[in-house]
């Protein structure tokens, strides 16, 4: 008999997510994912000055604000018809790169590691590291005192035969976790050197950036980058490999749809026609050129009564809370009617098959060699973690070159005047995948703003043909050993790095309120 399990709230993600799964004979047979929060940021943007958009949209997500800011300034450049100077393109890349590194490291250690590492192993620690001794004494004292909340916030957790058994490995994992807190802080510092502060930087503006790349900033950035790079190479990548070797099942669990897309991330020229992480698609095992006209959003299972199968340019959003059969506030974006996964795995696979960057291919080949798996094994829970770690290294390496290309005396901003009427789009890649921002300006004010974000692609419900979204497809077939402690589906979903705050956009649960978007 099938049993239904609800995991709500799914913690250690960004935002509020509910996962409902049906389990039969120890395996997930059906899965539904639902976003649980709405703020209406696109509505708030309306009637504001277009210049405000990059600062407001960063507040969509505090983990990866930079990508929303970046998508937004690309849209403003387009709408204002300005080309930012080279310095600005590079500084935007460097700041976004710093945010990627912060987000990827945070994701593996702070959000995912507790699904594998046994934190209670700290009680067996016998070494001399002062930080680890402190952690051990802290947990031990609370346990000895009989405190219910000993080890909070890391305990309580799902209990079962789920965690790494080797004490030394667990202690290494805890030590890496502590180090990761420090390293990701330095990623934020690195971004703030150009951005003013993090989260939510100050210097992303249409036409360029507001900061000047003085020599002291370049030096301070480079010094931190070098330390972060070492952590990625000596700790992050080896830790992902160590987990992969202990949990090889997860090279087959959570495979998902197997179709991938990238808008292209980190422009390498001013016309934005070349990227460090290339644009493209991988559908049914074949690469394809990207054509934005093939994107359509379906709503049969979404709480909207508006038209279905529309391109975002013509998108409508008419909410209907009580719509029969609907179970999500996310629409179902599809490319050429296909379900698409976005994110680091998509980018790495597309770059790998694209073969335009030798460094990326040799890095992926050497990782596959170490792991002893074929490239298609990357399409899995572990593959997503591995792709994220490899992408961190590719970025950190390239960021060092970008620093060399900065001109401390060069311009950072191209002056613009806000047009009375215009529209623009900004496509970019974020830590979690493809992100598009669309702006329409009327009478010098924002008349319409729309963002289609990575987790809308990945977390989408079934489309009109009844084909489940990427999260759902990845969950189906996932084994569940104990329905009271369903750690396996949580691991699968976390490998996507969901960001629900980003994913839920224009909705309203009152039937008499209608929001329409025509772009």
């Amino acid at each position, binding site marked *: 008999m099938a049993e239904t399990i609800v*995991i709500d709230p799914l913690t250690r993600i960004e935002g509020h997510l509910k996962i409902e799964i049906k389990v039969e004979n120890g395996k997930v047979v059906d899965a539904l994912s639902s976003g649980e929060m709405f703020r209406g940021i696109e509505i*708030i943007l309306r009637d504001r*000055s277009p210049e405000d958009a990059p600062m407001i949209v960063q507040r969509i997500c505090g983990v990866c604000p930079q990508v929303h800011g970046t998508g937004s300034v690309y849209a403003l450049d387009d709408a204002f018809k300005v080309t930012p100077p080279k310095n600005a393109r590079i500084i935007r890349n460097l700041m976004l790169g710093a945010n990627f590194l912060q987000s990827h490291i945070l994701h593996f250690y702070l959000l995912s590691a507790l699904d594998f590492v046994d934190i209670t192993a700290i009680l067996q620690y016998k070494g001399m590291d002062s930080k680890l001794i402190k952690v051990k004494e802290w947990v031990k004292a609370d346990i000895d005192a009989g405190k219910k909340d000993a080890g909070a916030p890391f305990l309580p957790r799902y209990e079962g035969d789920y965690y790494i058994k080797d004490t030394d490995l667990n202690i290494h994992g805890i030590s890496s976790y502590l180090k990761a*807190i420090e390293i990701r802080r330095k990623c934020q510092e690195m971004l703030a050197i150009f951005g003013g502060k993090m*989260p939510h930087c100050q*210097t992303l*503006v249409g036409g360029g950036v507001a900061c000047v790349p003085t020599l002291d900033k370049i030096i301070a950035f480079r010094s931190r980058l070098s330390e972060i790079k070492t952590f990625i190479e000596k700790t992050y990548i080896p830790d992902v490999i160590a987990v992969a070797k202990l949990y090889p099942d997860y090279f087959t669990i959570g495979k998902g749809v197997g179709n991938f897309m990238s808008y292209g991330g980190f422009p390498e020229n001013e016309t934005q026609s070349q990227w460090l992480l290339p644009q493209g698609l991988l559908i049914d095992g074949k690469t394809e050129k990207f054509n934005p006209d093939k994107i359509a959003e379906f709503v049969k299972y979404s709480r909207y009564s508006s038209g279905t199968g529309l391109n975002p340019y013509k998108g409508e959003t008419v909410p209907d809370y009580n719509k029969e059969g609907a179970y999500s506030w996310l629409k179902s974006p599809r490319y050429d009617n296909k379900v698409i996964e976005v994110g680091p795995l998509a980018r790495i696979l597309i770059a790998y098959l694209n073969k335009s960057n030798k460094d990326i291919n040799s890095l992926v080949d050497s990782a596959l060699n170490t792991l002893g798996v074929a490239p298609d094994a990357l399409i899995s829970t572990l593959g997503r973690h591995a792709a994220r770690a490899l992408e961190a290294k590719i970025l950190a390496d390239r960021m060092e070159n970008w620093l060399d290309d900065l001109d401390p005396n060069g311009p950072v901003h191209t002056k613009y005047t806000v047009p009375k009427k215009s529209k623009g789009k900004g496509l970019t890649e974020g830590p979690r995948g493809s992100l598009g921002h669309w702006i329409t300006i009327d009478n010098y004010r924002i008349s319409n703003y729309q963002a289609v974000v990575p987790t809308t692609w990945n977390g989408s419900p079934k489309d009109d043909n009844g084909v489940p979204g990427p999260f759902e497809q990845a969950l189906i077939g996932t084994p569940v050993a104990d329905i009271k402690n369903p750690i396996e589906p949580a691991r699968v979903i976390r490998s996507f790095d969901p960001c629900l705050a980003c994913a839920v956009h224009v909705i309203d649960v009152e039937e008499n309120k209608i929001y329409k978007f025509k772009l």
Partner: protein
Amino acid sequence: MLITRKKFLQIFSGSIAGFALSNLWLPKLLQAANVKNGKGRLPIVWFQGQNCSGCPVSFVNTEYPSADEVLIEVITLEYLPTIMGGTGDVAVDILERMITDEKGKFILAIDGSIPVDSDGNYCNVGEINGKSITALKWIQALSSAAGAVVAIGTCATWGGIPAAPPNPTKAKAVRDIVKDKPVINIPGCPPHPDWIVGTLVHVLKYGIPTLDDLNRPVIFFGPDKIVHDNCELRQYFDAGIFAKDFGQKGCLYELGCKGPVTHCDAPVRGWNSGVNWCNRSGGPCLGCTEPTFPGGTGSGFYEKLPAVQVPGLSEINANANTIGIALGGAVGAAIAGHAIARAVSAKKLKQKSKQNSDVENSDKVMEQSNTQKEGK
């Protein structure tokens, strides 16, 4: 999670007690938490409403003390979705236990605003008996059980981004929902980690910090913490040198800087381990610690503050006090020199005593410049 109806009612029908903002609650809380002579840890339940997770991310950015030191030595973090080990029912169980078994023994920290439209259904957290529970219900139940409440970040303190016009979800600040408990406000989008950690350490070691009339700790947001008065670009303002485009040298006033009407110590503290701060970076202050953030449709981030006199352009009017001490007649950079700087300092000292009332004036200026927020 399945629980009995009795327990359900017990969790979600906490009575509203009388409210007095005083230090009286603190000894009880500290005693319950086993804190003696400032030694021990504050139990914290960190609940998230309509948020972006920027507040917990900023909290984890703390340098001295480091995040792990805070977790080990300052607080017991019972619940914080962004980093906690438990998920699903394991997480909901913790909230349930705090509400029923730990009455008066913990501090409730909240980031994010609380939507009240559509019965609060714009933000749901967890299920009980197969029914989604709204953030509003959780906060009512948790705050009723908590010893004290701390609102973290501008969404929780004033409503912030979700409450900006037209406030689509009728998002509320914590102080609009919690009426029976003192609410300490730590604004900022996000707040500096030192403001969060500093306030908690102060409560633990020395009691409640002195608060201003908006319940903000004056050590971080006091009347002497006006961004404009402590800005390193102040010399440009005094000399009448204004940046006309991004990346230019000069005071950022013409680019929309809200420093003259914003309270926080970012100019002297610096962000992200002190590597930079807003105006130093070249991106003008957005006024993110103020109730007026992010403003209505009438006051863009890059639109000049209204009703502020600029040096050299006309006589100083009463409002000029609110943006510090404007220098009459000093238009060009060349005029600015030591003598003038000294004159400014003297004048500044003289006017400092007037500052408190000036701060209120400045708030009024800001308020007038914004459309009133809906649903506040």
